[in-house]
């Protein structure tokens, strides 16, 4: 009975009520959307590397080592000598070790020298391996495998020649030794998408005629001669290490960190990711706080609407009273109306969210490499929506109390 009354009463003020519902719906969609982006970003961030037990680099900070070795952001403070790399590789605890050599670039993309084992051992998103969408892995010294974003942005396909630039953002190209694209990787949503991968030897090969960061004038060794040369690198930038047993991780980490011949740093990727997220995470918390404030604003708007309606509904209330409604019924009616509005807002908010997600998901994935999962609303979303409805009920208590008091005092006559 009272429910029918509440719905009919809301329907009578359809325009105002719809506006209030819209405000709540948009704020709820914004809040849930921010939450979605936040968890999505955190997830895809943590999914960047998995299956690697330790990352080894020159001694610096764990976040810095992670940034340059995995995210290809910033530069190494130092390299690791090949001897140290060999020492670590020869340790009995080490199951596999993949060297990484960074420092050259192609257009805006970084070039990474590594061994073919990188493709076996680099894992992302809970143990997924890299896969080729086209072509094959490097067969020749001057072969390269490129990430999906590199291919898409620069419009490359298998067989195209590319020239690697010396250093990052420099004008010196390794023109004498052009590479050929032998394969293009599937999109991973990780920094690998934006990487040009060559063999470790190729990094040495393109620097054969170079000294002190510049090409020796007039000197150019033909590729066939280079192929015959000993191209063992003198140094690498970092190494990914997998262990025989996780039980040995801390012991090996300590051994590497205390390696007397060279200052090295070994980090646990998961812990370094956590450290990095702790820095980045402040922004996401701020964003969440702002969107929560938007929800609060919409709810206060709801309260204001109910207050405003009280004056115009004084006669209505008085009639209810004359027909035998108790003051508590008036109170309940107003609360119920507010709850209905908040619930409608929450439901429409959820609809807006999924509608928005279905449009934005491919765009966000393409532009930011961030994959937002469209999953049915889970327990957390349900909790947030319930909280909004409950908050709607709470903010309506104040106007409802006022109506309760007025309905006691007011007679049938409206005195103006």
């Amino acid at each position: 009975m009272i429910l029918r009354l509440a719905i009919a009463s809301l329907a009578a003020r359809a325009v105002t009520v719809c506006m209030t519902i819209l405000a709540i719906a948009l704020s709820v969609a914004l809040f849930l959307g921010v939450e979605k982006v936040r968890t999505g970003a955190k997830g895809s961030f943590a999914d960047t590397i998995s299956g690697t037990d330790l990352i080894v680099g020159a001694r610096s900070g764990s976040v810095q080592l992670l940034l340059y070795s995995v995210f290809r952001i910033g530069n190494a403070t130092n390299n690791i000598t090949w001897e140290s790399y060999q020492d670590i590789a020869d340790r009995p605890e080490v199951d596999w070790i993949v060297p990484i050599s960074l420092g050259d670039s192609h257009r805006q993309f970084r070039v990474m020298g590594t061994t073919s084992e990188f493709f076996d051992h680099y894992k992302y998103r809970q143990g997924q391996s890299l896969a080729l969408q086209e072509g094959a892995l490097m067969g020749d010294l001057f072969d390269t495998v490129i990430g999906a974003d590199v291919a898409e942005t620069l419009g490359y396909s298998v067989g195209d020649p590319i020239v690697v630039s010396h250093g990052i953002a420099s004008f010196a190209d390794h023109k004498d030794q052009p590479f050929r694209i032998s394969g293009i990787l599937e999109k991973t949503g990780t920094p690998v998408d934006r990487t040009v991968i060559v063999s470790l030897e190729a990094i040495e090969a393109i620097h054969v005629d170079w000294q002190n960061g510049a090409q020796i004038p007039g000197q150019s060794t033909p590729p066939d001669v280079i192929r015959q040369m000993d191209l063992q690198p003198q140094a690498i930038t970092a190494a990914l290490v997998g262990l025989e047993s996780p039980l040995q991780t801390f012991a090996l980490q300590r051994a590497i960190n205390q390696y007397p011949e060279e200052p090295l740093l070994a980090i646990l990727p998961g812990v370094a990711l956590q450290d990095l997220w702790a820095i980045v995470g402040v922004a996401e918390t701020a964003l969440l706080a702002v969107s929560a404030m938007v929800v609060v604003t919409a709810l206060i708007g709801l309260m204001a609407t109910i207050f405003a309606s009280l004056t115009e509904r004084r006669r209505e209330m008085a009639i209810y009273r004359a027909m035998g409604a108790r003051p508590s019924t008036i109170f309940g009616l107003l609360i119920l109306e507010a709850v209905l509005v908040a619930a409608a807002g929450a439901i429409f908010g959820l609809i807006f969210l999924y509608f928005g997600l279905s449009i934005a998901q491919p765009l966000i994935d393409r532009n930011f490499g961030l994959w937002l999962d469209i999953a049915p609303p889970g327990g957390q979303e349900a909790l947030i929506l319930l909280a909004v409805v409950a908050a709607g009920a709470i903010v309506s208590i104040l106007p409802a109390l006022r109506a309760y008091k007025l309905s006691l005092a007011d007679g049938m006559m409206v005195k103006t």
Partner: protein
Amino acid sequence: MKPAISLLALLAVSPALADGTREVDAHVHGVGKLNIAIDGTTVAKEFHAPGADIVGFEYKAENDEDLAAIEAALQTLSDPLNLFGWPEAAECTVTSASAELETEEEHDDHGDDDHDDHDHDKEDDHGDHDEDHDEEDNHDHDEHADHDDHDHAEEASHTEFHAEYRFDCANPDALTELSFTYFDVFDNALEVEVQIITASGASAFEVERDAPTLDLSSAF
């Protein structure tokens, strides 16, 4: 960095390295470190804590009381289930446990060879540096004779307790939390930094005296 450049840089640095490396680990009073690795039913734990947290002092033991305190601490640290409790349901039993005291001191001019020999870091191996403590002089001093010309200022030294444990847990799925009764046992300990490695990777936590239970469910 280009390999060619870094090679030159390395050559320039090499003579300095030949003199031996000087380094001192970070050491924060009040903060212990606990590393946990889980592989199937085997759980390995290693624990490091500053001497100040465990026995309240970091100078070299000066009298019988200090020695007794260290001895008692080592005994306590050798019983991991009384310090870091796994849930009953995990059915963990201790397969090995050991604890020791190490001294962190600045050794300026040791060759690399000496660094491989960790014996010289042990607290009780330095008994010969202080004439007053003949009662501890039960060690072979000859191999450490070269240490005699060092000035071992007691204030400059830091001590750390190290302990290593192995457990066998019949039901590793139940390893969802760890309760730090450690804080009840050692009053000076304020915080433990925990790193844990499970099949799903490594993660880090901080456990403080106010909330001595660690929820590990997110680490699996």
